[in-house]
């Protein structure tokens, strides 16, 4: 079931807004926000990566589309952009970090690969599509509510 769609300009200021959108959309559907920490982290890292590396500096009017789904056990977030092609799955997932390397940074995409229950990246035409999936808990409610119909 699709819980929500959003469209965000490619700029760092959008990262907080996109994360707030995921939190509020899931929360409105009764999903425990505390169970979304890995998913939110992964969204943050991928969105930040697109904003910093996805487009040449002079690019105008670029957007990331975000779709949130819930199947009863897992929340999925689909991120779509038209920036430079880059697959996080090409990274070496077995990194050993020291304090010095943590100061330099670069652990974000490693965490995306390690923390999610499912991560998928593919390219369709000029679009990069990232699907992030993580188990989520729902608060006890009598009946599930479809966010589109309120039923």
């Amino acid at each position, binding site marked *: 079931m699709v819980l929500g769609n959003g469209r965000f300009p490619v700029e760092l200021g959008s990262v907080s807004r996109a994360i707030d959108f995921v939190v509020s959309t899931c929360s409105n559907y009764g999903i425990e926000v505390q169970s979304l920490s890995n998913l939110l*982290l992964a969204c943050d*890292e991928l*969105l930040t990566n697109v904003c910093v590396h996805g487009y040449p500096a002079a690019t105008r009017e670029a957007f990331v589309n975000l779709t949130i789904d819930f199947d009863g056990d897992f929340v999925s977030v689909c991120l779509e952009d038209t920036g430079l092609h880059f697959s996080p799955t090409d990274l070496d997932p077995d990194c050993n970090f020291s*304090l010095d390397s943590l100061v330099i940074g670069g652990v974000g995409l490693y965490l995306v690969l390690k923390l999610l229950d499912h991560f998928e990246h593919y390219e369709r035409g000029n679009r990069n599509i990232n699907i992030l999936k993580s188990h989520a808990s729902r608060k006890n409610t009598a009946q599930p509510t479809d966010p589109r119909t309120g039923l």
Partner: protein
Amino acid sequence: MNISIHRHRDVTVIEVSGTLDSAKSVEFATTLDLVLAEGVNHVLIDFSELIYISSAGLRVIAVALKRIRKSGGELVLCGLKDDRRRIFELTGFTKVIKTFDNKQDALQLWSASDE
């Protein structure tokens, strides 16, 4: 994200709640800069109410940890729950920084050394 700072004897306690995303990590860095600029040597960051921390937030902690150790101080963490603890384990943070289940246990670290 909300950040509150208070003192417990000579320990500066920084409570961070909500989502510490990439953009908000700038505010987090500024807070730590200001605290360290005061010359404090004992810093406890309480993440009991944290929803998640981005890699940018982790980097802020790494920078602050190096800085405070250079001046003979120590920075520790407490309140990391489940998935959030795993992030610190996966990145090797738990090998280089002390973590405690709660604030009381963390404060014991320094109260014990005071005696």
